[in-house]
């Protein structure tokens, strides 16, 4: 499909000339310089203290069994997020029973988001050393009904914790590794009626710390989707087909000189 999109885009006349200006518009404000490249090695313990993670970055954290670990990451319109978590469990000699681990994803309004697929919760038998979890979210729409909890552009929270364990296994050292990725779904989920501002908590007062709250190249504008390309390309092709059809039936009539 990307090839098709490129082809469709290539059809647009004058695109190359205006590309630099266009890119600047599409990307919005330029990314903040000096964003730390190092992956976070700590996790937050509540929504407020969630550690921001960039997409594709592998965050790690040392913790105790029973801690609630929070990370946050940005998802933009048209992206379908997948979060993966790997837990290095305490030595099996010091564990007493099977424990169940779980990841939950919340949006910027702290509403729990369902997983389309992935292993959201899994038991860790006493003898296993690691555990892998994953959750694929629904594609992010630009806007949604007030009454729905469809995913919207903004901050997303990931919570990793053990939900079921033997009491005597609490407090043992574990190491967690999480990563959030996003796949572009194109304009398939571009709906009308975009939010004026992404669902970033505290956006009114801009209280959040500057680092890592938004996508690296800024939030995409509310107007952009590849539907523009499809529609414009369709119009162009329709026009070309019209000319072809015209030439077909008009035929030799054209050759007659106007005397």
């Amino acid at each position, binding site marked *: 499909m990307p090839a098709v999109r490129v082809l469709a885009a290539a059809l647009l006349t004058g*695109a190359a000339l205006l590309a630099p200006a*266009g*890119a600047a518009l599409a990307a919005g404000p330029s990314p903040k310089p000096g964003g730390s490249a190092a992956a976070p090695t700590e996790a937050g313990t509540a929504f407020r203290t969630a550690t921001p993670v960039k997409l594709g970055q592998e965050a790690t954290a040392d913790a105790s069994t029973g801690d609630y670990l929070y990370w946050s990451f940005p998802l933009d319109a048209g992206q379908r997020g997948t979060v993966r978590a790997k837990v290095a469990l305490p030595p099996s000699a010091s564990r007493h029973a099977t424990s169940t681990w779980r990841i939950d994803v919340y*949006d910027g309004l702290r509403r729990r988001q369902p997983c389309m697929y992935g292993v959201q919760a899994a038991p860790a038998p006493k003898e296993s050393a690691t555990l892998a979890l994953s959750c694929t979210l629904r594609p992010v729409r630009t806007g949604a009904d007030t009454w729905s909890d469809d995913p919207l552009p903004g901050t997303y929270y990931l919570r990793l914790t053990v939900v079921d364990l033997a009491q005597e296994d609490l407090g043992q050292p574990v190491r967690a590794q999480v990563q959030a990725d996003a796949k572009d779904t194109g304009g398939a989920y571009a709906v009308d009626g975009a939010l004026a501002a992404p669902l970033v908590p505290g*956006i009114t007062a*801009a209280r959040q710390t500057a680092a890592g709250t938004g996508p690296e190249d800024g939030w995409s504008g509310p107007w952009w989707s590849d539907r523009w390309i499809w529609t414009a390309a369709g119009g162009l092709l329709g026009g070309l087909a019209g000319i072809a059809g015209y030439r077909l039936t008009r035929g030799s009539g054209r050759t007659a000189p106007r005397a």
Partner: protein
Amino acid sequence: MITRKWVAAGACGLLATLAVGLLPTTASAGEPVSKEPPKVELVLDVSGSMRATDIDGQSRMSAAKQAFNEVLDAVPGEVRLGIRTLGATYPGDDRNVGCKDTKALYPVGPLNRSEAKTAVATLAPTGWTPIGPALLGAADDLKGGDATRRIVLITDGEDTCAPLDPCEVARDIAAQGIHLTIDTLGLVPDAKTRDQLVCIAEATGGTYTSVQHKDELSGRVRQLVDRAAAPVVTPVAAQGAKECQSAPKLGAGLYSDRETFGEHRWYKVDVKPGQELRASVSLAADRAVNNDYGVMLRASTVHGREIVRGSEAGDGRTDLISTGLRYPKAVLDDADGDAETAPETVCLQVSNSFSAPASVKTTPGMPVELTIDLVDGPAHASDAAAFGLGRGWWLLGVLVLTGLVAGLVWGWISRWRISVWRTN
């Protein structure tokens, strides 16, 4: 992403005129979160049982001392650190005296590493384990100002000073709304110690760690001190009312409150036409609760008509349950003058369906965190698809076919017209 940008660029070239004034909102921020330096107090158990030599062949006390030295070396500069001991001075058998035995070893303030280390070196395992009084003392040490506060409690045994339950002490301290978190570390803990420490940590939103090895202790304490230094937004205390009429009026911000089992709390927010109200609430389960629970956040008009609600339910072990809602207030086109810009008062109701076993105390209530944002309203949706635009091969097919048919017909008509003209 490259393709996407390229495509975006191409479209912009064509549609540059359309793209006026629709730039995305930036999410950067500048406001400092907490101006005061964070305060941390390390509370160390120096009771007789700390003599036991079961941490990597060392006594618990020497392991703790060594860990403290490492931690003191690594304390971030901005942290105001203090050290308090419990059971350090009275070796006797008198319960009343033993249970008051807690003192500030090093006052909370700018850290002088060598002084603090010298003070720690003097400690020797001695007396009782008065955890409750030590926590009260520590909360007192950290008093004043608006800093974030953290107590790190390191102990090897349960509180021996009933009836003052340290877990309830912790919850009462947390309920004072002073942003205080208590993290607990148990040195080779037994079941009763563990339960008590877990309860203390849970009551204040802290963490519990069971320590079996020396390096675990220093690593964890250092992590907790660093955590205290991390900037965090502190909520403003609010007190919701029993009904909307008497509810406090809140603006955009972060608020904290307490709500007990089955209680409803009301708040009011003014929303101007063209604004969008975003509210989210989380309710922390800071004590042992029954297995199934839920929370609801409802926005209604002052007359009681429900506008929108957010609700969530869950089961099993959890730290909190949260939900949120959005309410874009429509712009009134036909209203005149004042009515057009007059804000609407929206009532927000927070209710919960937590329950607890009869043995669990219900007061103070569970911590509520309420976030309120007011932003510009979303663009009005006039179609399911963005701007009513199309997408996909079917669209292209239809357009090509339509173009072709139109071309054919047009060609045929012009051919017919030429032939008519020729004949004439």
